[in-house]
């Protein structure tokens, strides 16, 4: 059902955009261009002029944005009606002609619709969210603000911290307010559909306008014949970097992709065949690009500057004519924008600062490395570590990808030279070569001078419009016999490689976008959001239980999901118990004593969550047990939920004391799908310095609690051990030394009030992992994160409550990964069950257990002396054992005393530090023996 509805909405949206764009293309394209291109660029021009005029109207007279969009859409539709009536007898208006044009458009769009947009159709326009990008949410909230009767020039900030959405709405920076959001506002006003649906629909529409724009660009600027131009349109539909842009669900950027190609093409036409009508169309599109996505405007106009100079030098354009064109451009721009100039100036300044900044953050650093070429050519996916071929072949595949990318790049260069030689007009060559040089210089500056990963990341998607015509030309030229012999074979292979890798990459991005399976999908911020219709009912269900004056504490894994819930529950009183910051800021641990936070840019501020209201909330809304997005801290609720479905559970706070949840200091959630040969927590978070855990409303205040957690020691520190300190409300109450991996139950602490903040603090520091084969920008790490300690399975236990293993019901035989999964506690056991100098494990055991059989392996390669002595301590009793020779062993150990559990300590007589494995493991592990099973009898 969502597929058919979404397809119908998409087609209706394309017809609507064509309706809006028709008056512009009808009036500003000369007749010869109109016949072939009017319908091709009409939808793209349609959304651009809608955004431009509605933005200007709303901002100029402070008209509500919704009203402005309706007025502009109405005026454009009326103009279309008048023009259609006037042209009703022209051959182009005949039904057959219209049908042919519609068919041509669908043919151009088909590859993109099928191979890139399929998750949108599958999940539906109402739920698909791509990578669940906070940028999209910021656009949604801004459109929500505009739909409340505000104009483009209005900004505000809420005061009621129980209303997180309204607190944030209207507070976007002026450079972040993209006019392209007005397409969604228009459609929402016209159809009554939710703004979330129309915003998602508008992104799909922007994407659909891209292949026709590429066709137009390939024909007009590249001078390709119709067939290769259609191939170029098809190639953009399977372009991996474009699929990445769609997956990231950027509102401004995705609206700019088609606009960039159309604007540059119109500018080219204007300079090669000056005409006042083309001047108007180019000026409108350039001004639209200014408000839709200013960052792309220089990419559209800079190559035209070189072309203009070339035309002057070759006397194809008189100085007076160029001056007239510039004056005309300025005049059109002034007419459209005059009343908006101060606002636009502020926006341009904001963008100037964004583009010009040279102090950078931690995102998109991969694009500053040698991975850029494979990423740009679509032979690999971003992030590199999160793709099926990386999972299948490991890091060495990057070298292969680089070689393949260079092969494709060499072919592109050959095709480009061939195209330049064959071009029938030097103006085309000047335009394209100047564009490549300019874009190349920009890439160089951002890659090497400013090291601005975000800019280069964006360029990799933006510049696909320049790449695919060359590939299409290469296909055409090869087919036409321009290359022979080994060249034909090699270039044919490069084309096939390009198509195959991009096709696979686009499909894989689509699979990731479904957001159902975290494996290799960490480009998606939050899982099971796309396609999840439980969000539509949550407000109605919660409202059945929560009275108007009561509040609900939202407990989800990050700010992205918290704020999405705040959107759906926006009419209720809400708290965000934690995770109110975007994940990149949430990962900084505040100082334990001062609660001061030092962010990546050195700002020192109070770690104050304005949306948390202590232990005052009446209800908690959290994830269901079946949902992927579960945190590492999950309380065992005392009372059942008052309501639940497949995604959410609603608990009454008074019935559920000892509520706990994670705070700051953690990187994003990671989920282990299982099936590994070694133990790894099902749900885990890395931390650089440690993390916070909050305890609310302790039952029986004044009685002690213990915190337990699983910890795995991370990388880039020689020692395979860390010192972990535990604090409760700033007071240190425990300290342990974790070796390799541990499940630890702390000493007791006493909660001091309704809210207790616990901190799991790691004493050591580690740097980020370095890249294995850096070719340039060697300081850029493999992963910006400091993978110090992995934390999982966090619980707060009441006095006397046993530790909670990851698995229960393990029986009496603990084999393989179950050794760590089922142990109540352990320390010194590596995830692959190797033991170094010392280890301890505790298993549940009833009083009838008399013997434990330990099976394992003693490696011959470590040159131990035999007999090999191991000191065991079983429930406090020392039991020495000897092993005569290397290889598999089986030892029987008597068990006495202590009902309820078996506490086993192992101290091998000899061990080896594996310095030789440090390059692989990024730490020095110690090997003595490998434990395979413990069987209780």
């Amino acid at each position, binding site marked *: 059902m969502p597929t058919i509805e979404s397809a119908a909405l998409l087609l209706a949206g394309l017809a609507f955009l064509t309706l809006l764009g028709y008056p512009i293309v009808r009036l500003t394209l000369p007749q010869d261009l109109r016949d072939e291109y009017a319908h091709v660029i009409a939808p793209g021009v349609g959304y651009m002029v809608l955004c431009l005029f509605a933005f200007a109207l709303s901002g100029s007279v402070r008209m509500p944005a919704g009203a402005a969009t309706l007025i502009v859409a109405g005026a454009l539709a009326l103009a279309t009606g008048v023009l259609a009536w006037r042209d009703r007898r022209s051959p182009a208006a005949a039904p057959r002609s219209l049908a042919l044009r519609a068919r041509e458009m669908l043919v151009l769009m088909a590859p993109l619709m099928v191979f890139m947009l399929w998750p949108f159709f599958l999940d539906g326009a109402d739920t698909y969210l791509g990578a669940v990008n906070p940028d999209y949410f910021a656009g949604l909230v801004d459109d929500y603000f505009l739909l409340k009767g505000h104009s483009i*020039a209005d*900004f*505000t*900030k809420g005061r009621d911290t129980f209303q997180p959405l309204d*607190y*944030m709405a*209207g*507070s*976007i*920076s*002026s*450079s*972040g307010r993209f006019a392209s959001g007005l397409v969604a506002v228009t459609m929402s006003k016209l159809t009554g559909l939710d703004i979330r649906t129309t915003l998602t629909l508008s992104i799909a529409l922007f994407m659909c306008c891209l292949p026709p724009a590429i066709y137009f660009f390939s024909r007009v600027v590249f001078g390709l014949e119709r067939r290769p131009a259609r191939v170029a349109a098809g190639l953009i539909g399977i372009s991996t970097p474009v699929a990445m842009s769609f997956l990231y669900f950027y509102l401004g950027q995705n609206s700019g992709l088609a606009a960039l190609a159309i604007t540059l093409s119109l500018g080219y036409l204007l300079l090669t065949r000056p005409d006042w009508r083309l001047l108007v169309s180019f000026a409108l599109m350039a001004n639209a690009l200014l408000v839709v996505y200013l960052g792309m405007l220089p990419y559209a106009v800079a190559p035209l500057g070189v072309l203009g100079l070339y035309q002057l030098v070759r006397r194809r354009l008189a100085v007076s004519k160029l001056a007239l064109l510039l004056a005309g451009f300025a005049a059109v721009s*002034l007419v459209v924008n*005059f*009343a908006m*100039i*101060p606002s*636009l*100036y*502020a926006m*341009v*300044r*904001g963008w*100037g*600062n*964004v583009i*010009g*900044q*040279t*102090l*950078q953050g*931690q995102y998109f650093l991969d694009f500053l490395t040698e991975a850029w070429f494979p990423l740009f050519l679509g032979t690999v996916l971003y992030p590199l570590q999160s793709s099926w071929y990386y999972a299948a072949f490991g890091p060495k595949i990057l070298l292969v990808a680089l070689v393949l990318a260079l092969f494709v790049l060499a072919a592109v260069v050959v095709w480009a030279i061939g195209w330049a030689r064959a071009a029938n007009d030097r103006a085309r060559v000047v335009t394209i070569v100047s564009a490549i040089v300019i874009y190349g210089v920009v890439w160089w500056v951002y890659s090497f001078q*400013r*090291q*601005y990963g975000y800019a280069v990341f964006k360029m990799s998607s933006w510049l696909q419009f320049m790449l695919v015509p060359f590939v299409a030309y290469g296909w055409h030229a090869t087919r036409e016999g321009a290359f022979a012999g080994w060249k034909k074979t090699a270039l044919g292979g490069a084309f096939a490689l390009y198509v195959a890798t991009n096709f696979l990459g686009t499909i894989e991005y689509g699979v990731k976008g479904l957001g159902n399976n975290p494996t290799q999908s960490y480009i998606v911020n939050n899982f099971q959001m796309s396609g999840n219709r439980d969000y539509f009912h949550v407000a109605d269900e919660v409202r059945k239980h929560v009275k108007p004056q009561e509040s609900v504490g939202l407990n989800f894994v990050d700010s992205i999901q918290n704020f999405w819930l705040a959107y759906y529950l926006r009419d209720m009183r809400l708290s965000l118990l934690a995770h*109110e*910051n975007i994940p990149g800021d949430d990962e*900084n*641990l505040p*100082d334990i004593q*001062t609660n*001061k936070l*030092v*962010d*990546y*840019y*050195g*700002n*020192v*501020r109070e770690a104050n969550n*304005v949306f948390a209201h202590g232990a005052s909330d009446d209800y908690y809304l959290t994830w269901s047990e079946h949902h992927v997005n579960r945190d590492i801290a999950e309380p065992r609720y005392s009372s059942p939920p008052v309501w639940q479905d497949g995604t959410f559970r609603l608990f009454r706070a008074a019935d559920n004391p000892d509520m706990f949840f994670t705070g700051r200091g953690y990187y994003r959630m990671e989920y282990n799908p299982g099936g590994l040969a070694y133990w790894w927590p099902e749900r885990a978070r890395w931390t*650089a*310095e440690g993390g916070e855990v909050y305890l609310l409303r302790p039952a029986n205040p004044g009685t002690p609690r213990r915190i337990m957690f699983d910890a795995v020691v991370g990388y880039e520190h020689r020692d395979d051990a860390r010192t972990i300190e535990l604090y409760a409300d700033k007071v240190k109450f425990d300290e342990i030394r974790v070796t390799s991996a541990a499940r630890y139950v702390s000493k007791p602490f006493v909660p001091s009030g309704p809210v207790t903040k616990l901190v799991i603090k790691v004493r050591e*520091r580690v740097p*980020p992992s370095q890249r294995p084969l850096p070719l340039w920008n060697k*300081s*850029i790490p493999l992963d*910006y994160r*400091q993978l110090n300690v992995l934390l999982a399975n966090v619980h707060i236990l009441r006095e006397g409550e046993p530790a909670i293993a990851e698995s229960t019901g393990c029986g009496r035989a603990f084999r393989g990964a179950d050794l760590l999964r089922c142990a109540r506690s352990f320390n010194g056991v590596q995830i692959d069950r190797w033991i170094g100098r010392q280890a301890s494990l505790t298993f549940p055991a009833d009083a009838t257990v008399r013997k434990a059989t330990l099976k394992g392996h003693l490696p011959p390669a470590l040159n131990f002396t035999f007999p090999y002595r191991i000191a065991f301590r079983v429930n406090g009793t020392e039991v020495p054992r000897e092993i005569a020779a290397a290889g598999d062993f089986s030892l029987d150990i008597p068990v006495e005393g202590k009902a309820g559990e078996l506490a086993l300590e192992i101290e091998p007589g000899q061990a080896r530090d594996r310095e030789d494995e440090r390059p692989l493991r990024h730490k020095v592990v110690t090997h003595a023996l490998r434990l395979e099973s413990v069987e209780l009898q």
Partner: protein
Amino acid sequence: MRTHSNVAVVLAFACVSCGTGEHLADCPNMPVKGWDALPQAKEFTALSHRKERVYEPLSESSQVLWADSNIAYGALLTFDLAHPRFASGAPDEKCIRDASFMALVPLEPAREAQVRAFTEFLRTHGVPAAIAGRIDAARENKLLFGPLGEHAGAVIFAGIVTQGARGRFFRIQVTAPR
């Protein structure tokens, strides 16, 4: 009048890309005046990497930062900017409400000179010598970051802060009264 102002802004448009930095005013309640000139002081010209962080609703401020490196900085000058008319028609009108400088420890000579220059700036712009002296003492004794005194309502902080990814810094901060 509005037409004239628009024309003036049209002219200013032309200068957006020519690199002329905008003048940053001090907020009325910031008792230390003249911050805008500080980045041009010779000790700070090495801080050539600039960044503006857009308005952030939770802190109700934006920022402009200068650093000595584009990623792994060792010295960082920051102006925290208030937007007093954000919700009343001028969201981009801003003024300096807090200023800070921080340098990676140990302070090698160039960074130490920058710390001294920042302290000297405070001393010559009205901050009592006693407070400036406490900053020097905090630097010499590597004290943890904390308030050292008040000047016309503004709180002056100094001391060592630790950022998990970046390391330990000596930081001086002037916070105007809210």
